């Protein structure tokens, strides 16, 4: 499994080729050949918002839904969540938008055929169809679960023509009533999957990890932390992740993620819109206090 986070980034002014409603979301197709050529499922792009007179300085991040390297197009699915995304949902074909990408580490893809379950929550399903295709091309069996609060917030149920699909909604307006994680254990068992991939809200990613872990299934999750730069220079997008050396570090989800092995994420530190620094994290306030205490003891001896 390889990552591409050290590869060249492209900052381009991209033409909007098409923009259309998709349930509660907006499906956008932009022309960005360099990004389309390089991107892999799980990566994202960052769009500048508001045009030349904008008072919104920071870019907005979006999972790449799919790319078409031949035509040079990149597609994203955008929910109207605030002023920045609202501006994006109002873009029409022919307009231009600044796009930066491809960003982040893609979902790791197995080298051997492996049964997998893919889960997308809300617009988190956007990258899953492309990922499914890449996995299928490798000979993997793929099951797909899409969930959302309501049918309107379900993205792409119609795009899953070549993948066994399960749909859940919280209100039962489509598919099974319940959470996207509800059918997961059964699917893992019946398919014999040893890999799961998930993209969606943090509580969902945590739940997916919790279901997978006791079953020995590796869950790759794409997290969504608030990001100022998207390229690894600002340190705003961190969450505590256990490294290969067993040490927890506040890791940047934009360059070390957004895809992580769910088992390595310290979910207990994440709650109620906040992420705390675990005491045993490298350089945590608690560990530094202990260090200073030890140093003081040492010098007083």
């Amino acid at each position: 499994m390889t990552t591409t986070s050290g590869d060249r980034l492209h900052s381009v002014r991209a033409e909007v080729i098409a923009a259309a409603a998709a349930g509660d979301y907006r499906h956008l197709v932009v022309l960005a050949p360099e990004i389309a050529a390089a991107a892999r499922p799980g990566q994202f792009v960052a769009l500048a918002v508001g045009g030349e007179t904008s008072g919104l300085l920071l870019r907005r991040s979006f999972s790449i839904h799919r790319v078409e390297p031949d035509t040079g197009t990149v597609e994203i699915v955008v929910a109207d969540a605030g002023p920045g995304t609202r501006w994006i949902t109002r873009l029409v074909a022919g307009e231009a938008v600044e796009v930066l990408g491809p960003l982040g580490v893609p979902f790791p893809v197995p080298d051997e055929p492996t049964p997998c379950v893919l889960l997308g929550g809300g617009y988190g399903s956007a990258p899953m169809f492309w990922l499914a295709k890449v996995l299928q091309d490798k000979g993997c069996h793929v099951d797909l679960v899409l969930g959302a609060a309501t049918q309107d917030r379900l993205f792409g149920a119609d795009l899953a023509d070549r993948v066994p699909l399960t749909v859940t909604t919280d209100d039962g307006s489509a598919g099974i009533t319940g959470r996207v994680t509800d059918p997961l254990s059964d699917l893992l068992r019946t398919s014999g999957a040893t890999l799961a991939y998930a993209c969606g809200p943090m509580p969902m990613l945590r739940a997916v990890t919790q279901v997978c872990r006791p079953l020995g299934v590796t869950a790759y999750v794409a997290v969504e932390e608030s990001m100022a730069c998207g390229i690894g220079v600002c340190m705003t997008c961190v969450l505590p992740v256990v490294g290969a050396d067993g040490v927890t570090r506040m890791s940047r989800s934009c360059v070390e993620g957004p895809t992580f092995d769910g088992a390595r994420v310290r979910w207990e530190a994440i709650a109620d819109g906040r992420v705390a620094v675990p005491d045993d994290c490298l350089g945590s306030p608690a560990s530094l206090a202990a260090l200073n205490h030890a140093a003081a003891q040492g010098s007083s001896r």
Partner: protein
Amino acid sequence: MTVDLTTDLGHGVLLPNPVLTASGCAANGKELHRLEDIAKIGAFVTKSVKRDPQSGRGTPRMAETPSGMLNSIGLQGPGIHAFVEHDLPWLRSVGARAIVSIAGESSAEFAEVARALVAAPDFDATVAAIEVNISCPNVANRGLVYACDPASSAEVLRLVVPEVPRSTPLFAKLTPDVTDITVIAEAALSAGAQGLTMINTLLGIRIDTERMRPHLFGLTGGLSGPAIRPVAVRAIWQVYAAMRAGRIPTAPIIGVGGVRTGEDALELTLAGASAVQVGTAIFNDPLAPWRVARELGDLLHARGIPRYADVVGVAHDH
């Protein structure tokens, strides 16, 4: 006519162009190098580094604000030893000119960090100057920011100066959150700083009106971006004016705060800055440091000005 963009930061430090990165807005170089050659930047200013590895604060660490943002990172970083072992050699390998920003929770820690830095094998080849980020909290003094107090500011400089060869100028980085910034400037310069960087962020708070609690995990954050540019220009103006009037020692000023375009860089320069850093604008446009330098050159060219050095502080003459 090609415009001569070189700038002189004193003590033999000549930069090919006056546009630098701002500390903490460009990490330690590798990330931006994925977009463009960082050796072409006037100088690369690294993220403030302390003695030990730092996890930084919990999140949210940022809030977008009108034409700006608040950040509350908590100086997350590898610590000076890892910095010297990994980051400095890398900066050297790509031929970057580095200005290393150092920080500490005590004046002794600043000195310790400086010592470790100066001892690094790559120091002479790579480090053009040191930026002493005294706009960070002094744990011994109730967490008061050093640069809010002339005595604390001077103390840091006094301990750092002996650790650093004179050929590597020390720039003290000041906060605008003071009643009179010329008092702090004077304290830092009199204690041995050979230049000043102005300004660090303004203290701000954002409340999450949904959850009815402070938005940032660390409560307060630093306000940056174009929103604060008029405050940066004012701080540079006041200190440069005090230097011209002979009220404080004369020294080069590196301007920072809200620079997004070549015109912004020119504005800080006209107020008295001999070089200009680009910070938050990088988050909007990661190519900003290179673009700003290009735009600045074009602007001077269009105005028929042959040398960047000719316009430093000239708004004081008109």
